[in-house]
C-alpha cells in the first residue's frame, strides 16, 4: 500500500510565512523520494497559492489554512482563506506584452497555478475561497 502523508498548517498573515509551508512540503517530498524537479514545481504552486490567499483573506480572519496530502504519485494541496471571495471568471488572463506596458505588472498567480498543476479548482463565495491543486509527482 502506498505511503500517504498529510500535513495541515494554519498560517497567520506574517511576512514570508509561506516559507513555513514550503519547509513542510520539502520535508514530505524528500521523505517520499520525490524528485527535486517535482518538488521545485510544487514549491511554486504552494508559494503562489498562499500569497494569493493571504492577500485576499481580509482582516477579520487573517489566517490561511494549507492542507497537503502526498503520496509517491500525487500531491493534493488545499488552500483555504476566509475573505470575501472573488469571481474567478472575472480574473483577467495576464499577458507579458500587455504587462510590460502596464503599471500593474502583477496578477500571475492563477495562471501559474493552472499551468504548473494537473488539476486546479476554485470554490469562492462570500465566506472565503478554497483552492484545490492536484500535482502528479511520480
Amino acid at each position, binding site marked *: 500500500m502506498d505511503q500517504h502523508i498529510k500535513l495541515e498548517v494554519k498560517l497567520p498573515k506574517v511576512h*514570508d510565512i*509561506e*516559507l513555513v509551508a*514550503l*519547509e513542510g512540503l520539502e520535508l514530505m517530498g524528500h521523505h517520499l523520494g520525490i524528485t527535486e*524537479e517535482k518538488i*521545485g*514545481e510544487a*514549491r*511554486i504552486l504552494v*508559494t*503562489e497559492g498562499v*500569497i494569493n490567499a493571504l492577500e485576499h483573506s481580509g482582516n477579520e480572519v487573517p489566517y490561511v489554512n494549507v492542507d497537503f496530502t502526498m503520496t509517491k504519485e500525487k500531491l493534493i494541496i488545499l488552500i483555504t482563506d476566509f475573505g470575501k471571495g472573488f469571481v474567478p471568471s472575472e480574473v483577467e488572463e*495576464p*499577458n*507579458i*506584452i500587455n*504587462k*510590460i*506596458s502596464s503599471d500593474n*505588472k*502583477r496578477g*500571475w*498567480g492563477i*495562471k*501559474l497555478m493552472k*499551468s*504548473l498543476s494537473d488539476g486546479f479548482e476554485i470554490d469562492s463565495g462570500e465566506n472565503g475561497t478554497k483552492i484545490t491543486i492536484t500535482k502528479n509527482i511520480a
Partner: protein
Amino acid sequence: MINVFNLTSTTENDVLVITTEGYINNAGGEKIAQEFESHFQNGTTKLLIDMKGSKVVNSIGISFLIEIIEKLNDKGGILYFTNLDPSVEKTFTIMGLFQFAKKVSSVEEIK
C-alpha cells in the same frame, strides 16, 4: 530553511552582473530593481541575473523583473539570466519572460 534574500553585483565589460541568494519575493525583487536602477541611470543596458542561489521565487518578485525588462526595452537593452533552477525557468517560460529576456550559460556568452 530557505534563506532570506541577498545580492551582490559586479560589472564585467559592459554587463552588470547581479548574483542573488535566497527567496526572490517582493523585497528581493525590489532590491534587484534598485541595484539595477543605480547602474541604469549611468547608462548600463545589459543586465545578467545569476540565480544559482535562488530556488524560490514568487510572482510579485518577478513583477520587478518585468519592470526591469520594460526599462531595458526602452533603451534597446536586454536582460539575461543564468543558473536558473528548472522550476524557476518553467515559471519564467509560462509568464513569457523569454520573449524579452535570454538565458545564457555565462557572462562570456554576452557580446
